[in-house]
């Protein structure tokens, strides 16, 4: 039996990914769909959205196999950033930022805007963290560089060699940028790489990061 899904699901999910991030949107949608339609609805939503959004497929599969979706644990990330003078973030994931930002009370934090890809009005996103997060344009990254600075981005699955990241990250990172931040932190929200090719993400070398914080031992496939 095919469960009935809300009209406009794909469109609303696309909007949500820009507003709160691909992981956070997938987690929210899967939990809400499960609440209203149960397992068959999650399976149907995975069929509808999975091929286009590999992160949704991974998270729906996680819910279907384990009945829960672990939220990002910020402890290790906060520990790595504890002595950073400032933190520049590429990408926005509300599930991760909601937990990380309160753990970094002393560091200035900024989100990079204008780096391409689906992007919400980041000023509106930053307004959820009053006086804690500012928005800087891509060209202003040098103001956030420094020998104690950190550059953070979200990773959507990695193996020993390759990590899936937002294309915006590749717009920013190059040899000069890598040598201008002490910490290049990838926060892996998925763990293993998704089983489907993530059409909206780009690949980078795992070795580009000075630290890759893993998301436990979750097997999403």
């Amino acid at each position, binding site marked *: 039996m095919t469960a009935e899904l809300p009209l406009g699901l794909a469109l609303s999910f696309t909007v949500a990914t820009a507003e709160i991030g691909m992981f956070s949107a997938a987690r929210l949608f899967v939990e809400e769909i499960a609440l209203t339609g149960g397992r068959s609805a999650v399976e149907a939503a995975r069929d509808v959205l999975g091929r286009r959004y590999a992160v949704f497929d991974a998270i729906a599969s996680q819910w279907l196999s384990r009945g829960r979706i672990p939220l990002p644990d910020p402890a290790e990330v906060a520990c790595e950033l504890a*002595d950073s*003078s400032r933190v520049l973030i590429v990408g926005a994931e509300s599930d991760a930022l909601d937990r990380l930002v309160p753990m970094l009370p002393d560091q200035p934090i900024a989100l990079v805007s204008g780096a391409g890809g689906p992007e919400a009005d980041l000023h509106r996103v930053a307004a959820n963290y009053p006086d804690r997060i500012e928005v800087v344009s891509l060209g202003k990254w*040098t*103001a956030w*560089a*420094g*020998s*104690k*600075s950190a550059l953070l981005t979200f990773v959507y699955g990695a193996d020993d060699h390759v990590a899936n990241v937002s294309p915006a990250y590749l717009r920013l990172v190059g*040899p*000069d940028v*890598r*040598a*201008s931040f*002490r*910490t290049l932190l990838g926060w892996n929200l998925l763990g293993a790489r998704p089983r489907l090719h993530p059409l909206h993400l780009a690949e980078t070398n795992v*070795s580009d990061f*000075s630290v890759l914080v893993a998301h436990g031992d979750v097997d999403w496939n």
Partner: protein
Amino acid sequence: MPIHRPPLPKLKDHRHRHSLSSLAEAADPQALVDALLLVLADRRDAEFVARCIVGEGPAHHRAASWALLVVAAEIAERLGCKPGPKTQAPDTVSVALRLPPGAARDDDTFPLAMPLAPLRAIVEPSRHVEALADALVDGPAHHALANAALVALFARILEKLDARLPNEAEPP
């Protein structure tokens, strides 16, 4: 008709006999971090500087810088130098991050400063020392940091040699 391929010229030296991946395999970053801990007190600073030296720039530069620094550290250790250097000497020049001029802040230089004592040992007056220092810390980060780290290791080696008693010195 078979394609004629002229024989490859016989190599007369060691140039380009090894793949880039074998260079990367030979230059273990951890050995460089250990070497840098002779001139930097903080391990994370040493890891940052090591990443800039062996993680950026042309492959032959990475491997060459790694080899020179690890050999210099080996000499320093054989002379008795231990990790955990004293506070940076005042007679140093900083290595600037490659950033456009902007608002002044306290972390726009790399954590490794280059001591001038080794240069003062070979040239005078000061303007010559400063000219050499300028040349050593100029250029891309991997280049400037490798130079500064090598001079810093030389400084520790020279300090150790200067501290040796006269009867320990080699006969002329």
